[in-house]
């Protein structure tokens, strides 16, 4: 057997290679759909990756959502094709109220994507943290804040606890913290001028700053609502 490569073999291979790369796949989705959760223009702060959203595109065979989650500041973003979509948040997710058509059936927002799009999602949280000031002194982080009850109708819920978390990175929540102080909801006598403090533990390697947030755990609601992230240098 000879190993002589014939010229037309080379042509054939080149032809195959040249045609094989084309058009056998769709382009990846490229239109960026992003936004954030807001209440009266203010961002709703959450724990990252804990509050999911779902985007449905009706009319394409099987029914199934495109899933995503909000980040710590309540932002979301996803890449989509141009087309018509429906946006919703699954039942009992998030520290806010989402309109339901009937029990367990959630309302959806119609979204038309043609090119990059930014859309803020207006929701009504159960509570908001107001006038938050977090400071550090003498090895302690102290947070002073007010709590405003937003939903006061039949859906109103009580506060289970309020927590002040600190962490050495900018992810601050129950799962990402180096120290925490809890205040039971029953111990809150006035919603104004609540003060909490937590000791800063030894951090290795040492750093002269921590990140802090105050979070409210609402009775019967899984996800907490937080104050904006504060970096405290001491």
């Amino acid at each position, binding site marked *: 057997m000879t190993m002589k490569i014939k010229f037309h073999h080379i042509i054939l291979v080149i032809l195959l290679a040249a045609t094989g790369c084309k058009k056998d796949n769709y382009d990846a989705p490229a239109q960026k759909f992003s936004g954030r959760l807001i209440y009266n223009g203010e961002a709703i702060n959450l724990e990252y*990756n804990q509050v999911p959203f779902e985007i449905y595109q009706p009319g394409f065979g099987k029914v199934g959502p495109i899933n995503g989650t909000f980040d710590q500041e309540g932002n979301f973003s996803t890449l989509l094709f141009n087309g018509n979509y429906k946006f919703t948040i699954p039942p009992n997710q998030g520290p806010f109220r989402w309109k339901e058509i009937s029990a367990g059936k959630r309302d959806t927002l119609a979204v038309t994507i043609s090119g990059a799009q930014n859309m803020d999602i207006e929701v009504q949280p159960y509570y908001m943290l107001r006038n938050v000031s977090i400071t550090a002194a003498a090895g302690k982080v102290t947070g002073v804040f007010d709590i405003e009850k937003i939903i006061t109708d039949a859906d109103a819920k009580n506060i289970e606890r309020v927590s002040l978390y600190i962490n050495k990175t900018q992810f601050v929540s129950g799962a990402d913290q180096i120290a925490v102080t809890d205040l039971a909801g029953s111990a809150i006598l006035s919603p104004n001028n609540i003060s909490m403090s937590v000791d800063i533990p030894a951090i290795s390697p040492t750093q002269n700053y921590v990140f802090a947030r105050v979070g409210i755990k609402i009775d019967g609601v899984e996800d907490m609502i937080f104050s904006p992230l504060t970096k405290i240098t001491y």
Partner: protein
Amino acid sequence: MKKIFLITIVAGLFITESCRKDSDFLDVPPKQVLPTELAFSDPALVLSILGDLYNRTVDFSGLDNGWASFVDFSEAFPSENGSYFFVQRTGWGFGEWSSWDYTYIRDLNLFIQRATAATKLADADKKRFIAEARFLRANYYFELVKRMGGVPLITEPLEYDYSGNVTSLQKPRAKESEIYDFVISEAEAIKGDLPNDVNTKSRATTGAALAMEARAALYAGSIAKYGVTTPQVSLPGNEVGIPSALAAGYYTKALTAAQVIITQTAGSYQLYRVLPDLSDNFAAVFLDKSTVNQEAIFIEDFKANAGKTHGFTTNDQPFSISDEGLDAGRLNPSLNLVEAFEKLDNTYAPIPTKDASGNPIYYTNQLDIFAGRDARLAGTVLLPNGLFKGKRTDVWAGYQLADGSILTSNDAGNLKPLPGTTTPVQVTGKDGVINGQEFRTQTGFYIRKYLDPTVGSGRRGRGSDVAFIRYRYAEVLLNAAEAAFELGQTGIAIGYINQVRARAGLVTPLTAGDLTFDRIVHERRVELAFEGHTLFDMKRWRLAHVVWDGNQMSVTDLVSNIGNARKRNTQPYGLWPYKYYNPGSPNNNKWLFKEVLPSPVTGANRFQLGNYYSQIGNDILSANPLIVKQPNQ
């Protein structure tokens, strides 16, 4: 002449062959496949079909689906580089633990249909086979309802008519209570057709059917009772959630079914009390497969050198006593679990590492720190310096020096001289503990439950044939105790729970006044550790989102509130032994212990409300529009 003869012969052959009817020629019975009538004509053949159905039983934890099925929920730590995700993730996906094997259900339904139609089987055989298949079907529906809530209840093999219209095959989800009712009624229906034999363990018996019934009714009762604490975990059609009015009825059924076993009507089941050392005795419950063991009710059996073995011992044996070189030590029970074992005076106390003023307590022998505890501790967990296959494990994290610093190395073989000396010595244990060193314990503990002391059982080639016990008498007692307690019959409950405790060396009986819900939760945790109950118990009590709340655990969390059912349990801690080096001190060469969070543990378990019932896949939802989605997902 010869040619004519040949032609005649050939022509003759053609004619005789071609005269046969087409159907005779074409309809050849298959040689590789047994037709249904033939397969269901001989009990041995039917048993082989049934054997396959038994093998397909779905368990949450099982010895043949690996050590990893035992390691989750902060009850243990995975000492294997590829498996740290267990302790690094912050929770579980909604799809975790889902099961939807309607192929298995169809095969069971077909088996029941064909066995019922069989004409050549003896009546007694036929009855038993059908009852066994119904047992397996009920058992799988029980497994489904535990994970998914109400599922479509299919009890006949469905046939597709190729019409292009599949609506007749699309069934909605039954109510959660209806699936539990089905499991209970099937158990009641078949218990008389199954053998009443304490020595039949790998096939269904009356005892197995009743044990399944008791457990199922108990689960349904507690979902009805405790479901009210999480009203979000329900669906309007009750596909998920059971009305609380049904609780008492289910608890009564659970107690009645368990009492049939306890009164020995279903066979002479009893607690295993054979060996004088109570810890050895508890470990032997899982190892002894002889007729002496009348505690096991229904098991998944294995047989060495016969093709059905598992690698549990290979995966989990102590590193220095391993039969298989570097294969060892993956499943490390956590200190969280070890702390839960109470003292012999029925009180809870943390493992004493420090005295009242915060100074370390020094122990002459490593095992001394665990003295005076529930015998099940040493029967479930292989403690530091514990005995396995005639050898003691060598577990310690380094030398604690007088100046407070620690002398250790990255491997037991890496020797270092002690201060003031020049001879290098071993400064860490051969079996651990070193952060991040796989196959050796990183919590200070090895598993003892199921660990096979037979020679060669730790080799990959031979494997172990220790059985996995699916139902055992001690659990029946605890089920009965819980059902009686929930019905307000505390006196009866206390009698059952004390039997289980006495076997573990807790001979001071609890009084009716001592018995609380937390006691029952605690007793199940320590008795049934690593038997696949943790998740489902926590789910049915609606405690899962409380104990696995996604917050990190501190040492204070770890050592306080022991015995509290709502205690946080999100990260597996370890207890690391150190040797004290301070020549001149009376404590020189004694042991001290520290609670340590192994460094690979970075996540904290968060059980979301959407985890209570596993996700039904989008492929299933879009194939059958009648299926409703799970709540909170």
